[in-house]
């Protein structure tokens, strides 16, 4: 019993209090848990899928302030693109135009659609300008007498020729009309979300309506391709439904592994049961916090389940030691075989007492770690961080309180047989443990540490290349062969423009576009500078259009394509542009410069953003972060103290459009990707410091984590997974969970060291007792997340690979590097005594 007593030698006041509280009133504890579980199950059942465009956006970011300022006037970021393609490759036939007109009508009827901003060849806000003898004329692309859906209408070849010419004149080829005239597109802007004013956008409902449109019109002649945030949410939600199955499979696998490990149905079931309780509690708590479950957030319940199982396994492990052998499973099998086991209640109490601290430390470190991702100022991350933190916190209760109490009631059948199984299990791996224990000897330890540094350095160098954002067409959350991504490829192939857009807003005083030639000239030159940036396919802005109109006033003579300096002529050139062209606001104090990009790779976005920043600095066209110059000048004008020269002031503000949003998110990710990890490391370090009272010990646990994280980044580079909000978060979670191995091994080792054992012996002992548990834990977690590889959602599959890697490598790092670090950080002076 000498070994066993070491674990119980110094029960502190806290330990005694906690033990009395939990084990003094076991029935009460169970009833409380049952009640809370019942209540939270009820709330969990009320959870709804809840997605939001603005939840994905860092609303505090400079660019997104611009987005919020102008979402009413220009919209554009939250857009659904519906491409109607004729399978014959030629759109000029009556059925196609019939379909196109109908879909345009149907698109206007979709929930939350901003009708005035729906654009297609059939909407009046799409016009062309034509030069005639007496000046120039404009009109709708589809002539008024072309009514494909009226009864008895027959289209003539001339009409189609006219329409084709109008499309070219309206310069919508490549945007609203396919480059090869094989189809046309409808741009559907959704109304801005504004929960305060009761404007909630139900994306799943919109996605449903989009699917209905597709079902109605897609046939052997016509393809309907749909992309946009709303559609993506719908598809991800649909994909996420398969998560239920993964959950079931994960539970089954976990149970099986636990059963193999413990040879006990009861122990395996209890562990899984407690883990499920924490998941239910977490879901219930979500509902109570007023959150929905976001499709992007589907992974959190898995993680909570995995964490709960991993900690439950440690509890089971310790419990078995007590119930079989009355203490830690140290010593030879012969010695152990002679020892007497405790009764279940004592065993549970001892397990509770010994694991309370390391378990809480690991879980609290995890909590703080998850809370660290709160530094990303994005609503969905906030929800995820809260969800994960609450989940992990609740796991402390279920795993460290509920599980031991349940265990104390458990009568294991066939105890002798299970004991024999455990004895075999214990000696089975002795050779491996003996080998691993050598890692704590000075020379091997030095070699390992050196290797660790080399690997870290290599991983760091390779991991540096990790891509920010993502690169492929469509969305990284879905698989490349998913319909959504196929549609995205189709649309960007056929249309080239209109998929990846970044809008810079030029702000000036009221009537800037008519009153200020310098403003228009600057905006025009800015547009030209943007056009010259690699990755920009096309730029559209009011001055460019005004130049064409100016030539129009001069009979279309291209040599007059110039901005007039005269205010009168300038007005003449711009007065016919309505706000629904999206090129100016009502008083022409804001003009978007719309840049159509070839792709949305982070390098492309960075190049464009840098070009904008360089230009506005060099040309004094920047009023500073988040200043709305338009409002400022309007106020000054109203109060009569407008400073001299304010008429020609321009403020170029980044950025709206889907790429504007990406730029802001990339910016945030870049800003916090290191910070999050540092906070995570700091949290782990601090928790270890508090519980083990030794900065060196804390280092021993933290350093392997750093190595594994860098390896994780290297893997992301290797797998072409971009650093996005989602992945950043998952890597953080991986670290938070990975730390458990180190903490449990170290806690056990410390006990042994305090009992006076030499380092190598202590390490051998902790491997022998917790090594298998840790191995099984890693396996359980890895199997749980490994199944995700088969998910419909590419994001989930990628994260499955990432997390499996993180769990396994964290386990290996803990087993290999922890003893080596301990050798050189904790006991450099200790002579390796003869074993």
């Amino acid at each position, binding site marked *: 019993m000498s070994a066993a007593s070491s674990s119980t030698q110094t029960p502190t006041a806290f330990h005694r209090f906690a033990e009395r509280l939990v084990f003094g009133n076991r029935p009460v504890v169970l009833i409380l848990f049952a009640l809370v579980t019942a209540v939270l199950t009820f709330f969990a059942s009320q959870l709804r899928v809840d997605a939001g465009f603005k939840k994905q956006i860092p609303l505090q970011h400079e660019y997104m302030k611009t987005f919020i300022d102008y979402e009413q006037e220009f919209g554009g970021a939250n857009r659904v693109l519906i491409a109607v393609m004729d399978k014959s490759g030629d759109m000029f036939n009556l059925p196609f135009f019939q379909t196109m007109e109908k879909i345009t009508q149907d698109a206007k009827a979709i929930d939350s659609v901003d009708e005035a901003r729906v654009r297609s060849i059939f909407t009046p806000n799409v016009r062309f300008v034509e030069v005639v003898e007496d000046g120039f004329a404009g009109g709708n692309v589809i002539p008024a007498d072309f009514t494909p859906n009226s009864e008895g209408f027959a289209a003539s070849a001339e009409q189609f020729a006219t329409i084709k010419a109008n499309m070219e004149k309206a310069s919508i080829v490549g945007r609203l009309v396919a480059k090869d005239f094989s189809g046309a597109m409808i741009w559907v802007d959704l109304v801005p979300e504004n929960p305060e004013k009761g404007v909630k956008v139900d994306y799943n409902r919109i996605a449903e309506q989009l699917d209905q449109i597709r079902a109605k019109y897609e046939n052997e002649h016509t393809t309907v391709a749909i992309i946009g945030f709303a559609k993506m949410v719908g598809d991800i939600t649909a994909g996420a439904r398969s998560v239920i199955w993964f959950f079931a499979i994960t539970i089954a696998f976990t149970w099986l592994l636990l059963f193999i490990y413990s040879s006990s149905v009861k122990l395996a079931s209890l562990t899984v049961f407690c883990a499920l309780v924490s998941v239910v509690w977490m879901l219930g708590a979500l509902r109570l916090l007023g959150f929905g479950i976001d499709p992007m957030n589907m992974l959190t319940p898995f993680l909570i389940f995995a964490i709960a199982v991993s900690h439950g396994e440690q509890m089971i492990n310790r419990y078995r030691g007590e119930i079989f052998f009355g203490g830690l499973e140290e010593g030879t099998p012969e010695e152990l075989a002679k020892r007497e086991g405790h009764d279940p209640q004592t065993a549970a109490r001892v397990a509770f007492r010994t694991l309370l601290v390391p378990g809480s430390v690991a879980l609290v470190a995890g909590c703080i770690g998850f809370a660290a991702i709160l530094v990303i100022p994005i609503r969905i991350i906030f929800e995820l961080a809260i969800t994960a933190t609450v989940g992990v916190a609740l796991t402390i209760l279920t795993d460290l309180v509920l599980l031991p109490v349940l265990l104390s009631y458990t009568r294991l059948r066939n105890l002798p047989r299970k004991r024999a199984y455990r004895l075999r299990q214990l000696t089975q791996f002795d050779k491996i443990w003996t080998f691993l224990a050598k890692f704590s000897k000075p020379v091997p330890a030095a070699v390992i540490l050196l290797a660790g540094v080399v690997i870290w350095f290599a991983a760091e160098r390779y991991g540096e290349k990790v891509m920010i954002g993502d690169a492929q067409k469509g969305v990284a959350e879905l698989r490349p062969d998913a319909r959504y991504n196929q549609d995205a490829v189709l649309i960007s192939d056929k249309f080239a423009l209109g998929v990846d857009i970044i809008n810079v807003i030029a702000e000036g005083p009221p009537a800037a576009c008519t009153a200020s030639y310098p403003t228009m000239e600057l905006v025009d030159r800015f547009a030209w500078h943007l056009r010259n940036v690699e990755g920009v396919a096309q730029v559209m802005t009011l001055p460019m259009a005004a130049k064409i109109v100016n030539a129009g006033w001069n009979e279309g003579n*291209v040599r007059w394509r110039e901005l007039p300096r005269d205010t009168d002529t300038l007005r003449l050139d711009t007065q016919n542009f309505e706000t629904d062209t999206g090129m100016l606001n009502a008083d022409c104090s804001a003009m978007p410069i719309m840049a159509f990009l070839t792709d949305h790779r982070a390098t492309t976005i960075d190049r464009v953003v840098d070009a904008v920043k360089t230009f506005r600095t060099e040309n004094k066209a920047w009023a500073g972060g988040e200043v709305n110059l338009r409002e400022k000048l309007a106020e000054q004008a109203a109060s009569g103290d407008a400073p001299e020269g304010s008429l020609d002031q321009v403020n170029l503000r980044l950025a709206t459009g889907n790429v504007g949003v990406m730029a802001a998110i990339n910016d945030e990710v870049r800003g916090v990707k290191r910070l999050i990890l540092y906070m995570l490391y700091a949290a782990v370090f601090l928790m270890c410091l508090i519980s083990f009272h030794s900065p060196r010990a804390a280092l021993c646990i933290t350093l392997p984590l750093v190595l594994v994280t860098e390896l994780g980044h290297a893997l992301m580079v290797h797998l072409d997974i971009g650093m996005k909000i989602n992945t950043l978060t998952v890597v953080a979670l991986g670290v938070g969970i990975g730390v458990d191995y180190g903490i449990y091994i170290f806690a056990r080792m410390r006990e042994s060291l305090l009992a006076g054992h030499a380092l190598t012996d202590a390490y051998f002992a902790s491997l022998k007792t917790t090594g298998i548990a840790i191995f099984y834990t890693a396996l359980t977690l890895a199997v749980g997340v490994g199944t995700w590889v088969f998910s419909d959602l590419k994001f989930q599959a990628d994260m499955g690979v990432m997390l499996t890697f993180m769990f396994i490598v964290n386990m290996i790092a803990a087993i290999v590097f922890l003893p080596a670090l301990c050798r050189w950080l904790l006991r450099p002076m200790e002579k390796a005594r003869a074993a």
Partner: protein
Amino acid sequence: MHRSFLKFLPASLIVLAASASAQNPPADATSSLAAQSADPLLQTAEVMPLAERSLLLDLARSGERLVAVGERGHVLMSSDGKSWAQSANVPVRSTLTAVSAVGADVWAVGHDGIILHSGNAGETWEIQRRDPRGAGTVAAGDEIRQGAPLLDVLFSDPKHGIAIGAYSLLLTTSDGGKTWSGSRMVMAAGAAAEKPQAPADDVADDAQAADETDSAVFSEEELEIAMEDDPHLNSIARTASGDYVIVGERGAFFRSSDQGQTWTGGQLPYDGSMFGVIGFEGQHVLAFGLRGHVFESRDLGASWDEVATGTELSLMGGAALDNGGAVIVGANGVLLKRASASEPLSASTFNEAGVIAGVLPATDNNDLLIVSENGIRRIQPK
């Protein structure tokens, strides 16, 4: 666009007021101003990667080299018509509308009344003239206002050149552009006789007055009337006989048989504007312009025949081929070509070019070099 110029000279004889070069600032007077204003008139043109894809409006052959000009002061040079280099030494960013070259001497004209000269086939440029309206010179702090844009330029030798532009602006030089003298070519009587002139004056003046007080806007109708009397001069050509012909707004044309000293005006049988004119052997000329109209004259405009084109797209530029052949380009990538004077024009389309403004045959094969709103390219006509 409101104007109040002289418009009452009688008859068809047009007199140039040889008012020396008083209105032209010395070329170096502005160098000290360059840093003070972001105005395109005072800024060196920016060298940009896509300059050869920008709006280019004319090109000319300077010795062995091709020189193309266009928006933002873009000047591009090439020896083979395939790879182009942008000149980094263009002192303005104004849109350059036309270019003419004699040997290594190149002149480019454009908006803001700009005339640039290069003595080394486009490498470096100096300003010979600029015309910010309302000021004789550009001084620091002056409000720069719109000068009449120049739309074409033609040099017959290194000394003698003619530049033409909006509002009947006509400038001549006999010293290689060191001094430009000129006035506005005023057409009266003749062709425009049946149009009501005096009321037009009133309307224009009234409109201008109104504009200055309450920011009224011209109606299209008012503008139409106001434009009739001093038509924009769009294009100038020289025939083998040494005669000059200018075509302009609303079917106006002018010819001169004395090196541009005196001009006779006339009116095409079509009321629309002509944007370009090509001179051939003898007094053979071809004018083209709005909505696909082409007119041919073998007697320097004494009589005109309309040439069928089969297109309604406006024609912007052209070049002479051997034997009275011609190539004419215009809106939506349209290209008309005939191999000789006896053949009809046949049309083809280069959609990706957009509006084509100018064309020049390559010297080494049948390729054509075109400048358009989408830049410069070498094409093989069908």
